């Protein structure tokens, strides 16, 4: 087992590595078709990235890197960079997966913050569903467990069994609508050349990676995404008319609130909105000062 980077975690010989879709190595540059970025690579960095053009097992990759006499620190920094841009795909074997999970838990037990690796998905409805369902993986187990323990809070067994699927469906559909609005706005405001936006997921955090948009489109997207998510979640209130699904309104309201949390300054939708408000307030204050 080897540590190949901070967030990328541990890797075993059977694991297969490759560059993520949309990343093109041309000359001494790594081009990103999602946002049009052009990263300049040194010779050492190219030695690490070239083998990744085709899927390669870590066993073979290690042999290639050993032939180039690259320092371990440089290799790790390249992998860290690739993880930072969501450019590394690792298909882990079962043993690799278990070892990596053990490593992550162990690191967290030592109170060290570590992120999940970034993963790209195609920028379409299929990619959106894949990203969201994968992001909800950690939620599913907890959801079933908490519904099971919900029995302790005087909830009937039938309700306990129905809560997880309704909650899952409400969260999946509303998040999909939320993200598809962002994607739609990006595709409609594309000004320069052909860039293909992608979904980027890091654990439970999902976002759209795209080329910069103009200010109005950016602001509209940040406003409309959560609103459409709230509207979709609100549709689930209708289910509470069915006797056994009375709790649907509670789920719908909770999920609607979760969407509105995106407007907090900690998240990108909120950052865009708060930045625009700050600029407007500053501009008005400056104007008033001049008038005064």
């Amino acid at each position: 087992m080897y540590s190949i980077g901070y967030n990328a975690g541990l890797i075993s010989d059977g694991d297969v590595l490759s560059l993520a879709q949309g990343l093109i190595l041309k000359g001494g540059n790594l081009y990103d078709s999602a946002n049009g970025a052009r990263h300049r690579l040194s010779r050492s960095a190219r030695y690490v990235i070239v083998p990744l053009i085709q899927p390669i097992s870590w066993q073979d990759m290690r042999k290639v890197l050993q032939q180039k006499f690259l320092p371990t620190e440089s290799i790790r920094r390249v992998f860290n960079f690739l993880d930072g841009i969501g450019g590394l795909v690792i298909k882990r074997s079962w043993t690799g997966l278990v070892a990596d999970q053990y490593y992550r838990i162990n690191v967290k037990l030592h109170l060290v913050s570590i992120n999940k690796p970034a993963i790209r998905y195609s920028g379409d409805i299929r990619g959106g569903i894949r990203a969201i369902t994968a992001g909800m993986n950690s939620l599913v187990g907890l959801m079933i467990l908490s519904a099971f323990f919900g029995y302790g809070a005087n909830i009937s067994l039938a309700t306990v069994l129905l809560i997880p699927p309704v909650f899952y469906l409400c969260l999946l559909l509303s998040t999909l609508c939320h993200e598809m609005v962002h994607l739609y706005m990006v595709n409609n405001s594309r000004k320069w050349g052909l860039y293909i936006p992608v979904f980027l997921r890091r654990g439970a955090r999902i976002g759209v990676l795209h080329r910069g948009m103009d200010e109005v489109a950016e602001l509209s997207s940040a406003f409309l995404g959560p609103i459409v998510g709230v509207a979709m979640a609100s549709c689930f209130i209708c289910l509470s008319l069915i006797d056994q699904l009375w709790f649907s309104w509670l789920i719908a309201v909770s999920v609607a609130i979760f969407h509105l949390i995106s407007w907090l300054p900690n998240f990108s939708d909120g950052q865009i909105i708060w930045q625009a408000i700050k600029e407007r307030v500053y501009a008005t204050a400056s104007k008033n000062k001049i008038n005064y």
Partner: protein
Amino acid sequence: MAVRPGQVPLKTIRRGDMDGSLIMVDPMQRYETKEAAVIVAALAWVIIVGSTGIAAIIICGWKGAKSIELDWKNAKATFKCR
């Protein structure tokens, strides 16, 4: 090659993050994604609901609680057992 405590996790690549000698990151493009907080918030909510349920079972036994009153002001929870 263990990760040393205190190392800062690499969340997003920004200008100046990488050493120029190895990789020069395109300073014109951002890698901060348009991100939805929904699943993260849902995760936190499920953990809160689940832990309340667990607390009810621990305090009241397998029969569980009849009602749970949460007094946020005084940080106090009252479990009425079945």
